[in-house]
C-alpha cells in the first residue's frame, strides 16, 4: 500500500488549485511555503542561535523548534521580509530555550533598563596616540573575540549578532526585537564598547 503521508505523493494536485479544506493539501501548501520562506535562511538562523545559546547542538534544537513554529504559522507570514520574519521566530524560541535551560543567564528587566540608558559611558578612553587598541583588536585571536561576545548579556549580544553576523539594518533589528530604533543603536554601541574593552583587557 502506498503511503500518502509524505509530500512526495501530492505533486499531481498542485495544478488543480483545490480548495484549502483538505488537511493533507493544506500541509502540502504549508510545506511549499515553508520551503520558500524559511529554508533559505537556515544558515542565518543557526549562526544567530549559536551565539545566543553558546553551542551548535543547542542552536540546532532552537532552530528546529523555531521551524516547527514557522511551519505551523506560515500562513501568518505577510510576504514582506522572510529573513526578518524567520529570525524573529528563532529569537523568540532562543529566549524561551534560555529561560528554560539557562534561567540565570537571562538579564532582569531592571538591569535591562540600565543597559538601555544611553547616557552611561562604557569602557575606557582609547589611547589616541598610537591607535594601539584598533591594532590589538585586529590581531586578537578569533577565540578571544568570540569569548568577549559570549561574555555580553543576551540583550546586547543579540543586537551585535543581528547587525554584524546576520547583517540586518537597524530598522530590521528594531522590528525583530520590537524595540525603538534608538534602543537598537544604544544597545549596539554598548555591546561594541564592551567587547572592545574585553578584548583589550585580555591582551
Amino acid at each position, binding site marked *: *500500500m502506498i503511503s500518502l503521508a509524505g509530500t512526495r505523493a501530492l505533486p*499531481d494536485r498542485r495544478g488543480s488549485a483545490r480548495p484549502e479544506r483538505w488537511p493533507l493539501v493544506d500541509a502540502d501548501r504549508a*510545506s511549499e511555503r515553508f520551503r520558500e520562506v524559511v529554508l533559505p535562511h537556515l544558515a542565518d538562523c543557526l549562526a544567530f542561535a549559536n551565539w545566543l545559546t553558546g553551542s551548535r547542538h543547542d542552536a540546532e534544537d532552537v532552530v528546529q523548534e523555531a521551524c516547527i513554529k514557522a511551519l505551523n504559522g506560515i500562513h501568518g507570514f505577510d510576504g514582506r521580509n522572510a529573513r526578518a520574519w524567520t529570525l524573529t521566530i528563532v529569537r523568540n524560541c532562543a529566549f524561551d530555550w534560555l529561560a528554560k535551560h539557562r534561567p540565570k543567564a537571562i538579564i532582569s528587566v531592571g538591569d535591562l533598563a540600565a543597559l538601555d540608558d544611553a547616557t552611561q559611558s562604557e569602557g575606557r578612553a582609547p589611547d*589616541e596616540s598610537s591607535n594601539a587598541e584598533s591594532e590589538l583588536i585586529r590581531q586578537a585571536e578569533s577565540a578571544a573575540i568570540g569569548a568577549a561576545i559570549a561574555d555580553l548579556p543576551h540583550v546586547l549580544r543579540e543586537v551585535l549578532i543581528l547587525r554584524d553576523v546576520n547583517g540586518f539594518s*537597524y530598522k530590521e533589528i528594531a522590528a525583530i526585537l520590537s524595540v525603538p530604533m534608538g534602543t537598537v543603536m544604544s544597545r549596539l554601541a554598548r555591546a561594541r564598547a564592551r567587547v*572592545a574593552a574585553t578584548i583589550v583587557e585580555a591582551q
Partner: protein
Amino acid sequence: MAQPVPPSDDRLLLNALVDDELDAATTILLERRLEIEPDLAVEYRRLMALKERVSGLDRPPVTRGFEARIGALMTQRAKSLTPANRSGFYRNLSALAASIIVTAVLASGGTYLFTTSHSGFSIEDEVAGGHRRSLLATSPVDVASSDRHTVKPWLDAKLGVSPPATDLAADGYPLIGGRVDVLGAETVPTLVYRHNEHLITLMAEPGAHGTVPPSFEVASGYNIVHWTEGGFAFWAVSDLEQTELEAFVRDYRSS
C-alpha cells in the same frame, strides 16, 4: 594621554557611520569632525576594527544531517494530518461510528450524509470511504440508469452540476447510475460504473482549475486514480486491479 570618552550621542553616530546607516548630510558633517577631532577618529577606527572582526567570525555550517531534520518536520506535519498517526483505538472507533451512521442513513433510505471534514482524514480516504459505503448499501446509486440522459439531468437537478455521464458499456464498463456523495463538507456528483462483478465509483468535484494527468494511489485498501480536467477533480475508486482501473480512466476520458 587619555582622552575623554566621546559623549554618548557621538558614539551612537560613530556606530551608525560604521554601519552605513547615516544619511548623506550627517555623514559629511561627521567625517569633517573626524578629521579635526582625534579622539573621535580613534574611536571610529576601533569600531571599524571590531566590526570587521565580528563579521568575519566563522558561522556554523548547515550540516546535511540538520537539513534532513528540518526536512523531516514537513513530512511529520503531513503525516500528523493523515490517518496514519491516528491511534488504532480512534480508528476503530471512527470505523464503528461510520458503520453506525451508514446503517442509520441507509435504513432511512436517504443519500449519504457523512461529514468528516475536520476528522483529519485525507481526501483519498474519504473517496475510498464513499466507495465502501456504496458497496454496503442495498443500492450503490440513487438514480439507477444506464441512460446518460437520465443520470446527468438527475445530478444537474440535484446539484446544478454533473460530469459527463457517458455509458461505457461498449468498452466493458456499463454505467449503472449516479448518486450524490459528500467529500469534506461538499456535495459531489458521483457516477457508478460496473466492470464484471466490480463497481467503480467516479467522484467528480466541481470547481477545479487546470489539467492534471491521472495518478495512481491507494487508500484504505482501495485503488484510486485521480486527475483534473474540464473543471472537475476526478477520483475513480475501485477494488479493480490498477491496470484495469487505469484502463477504465483512459476509456472514460476518451469518450
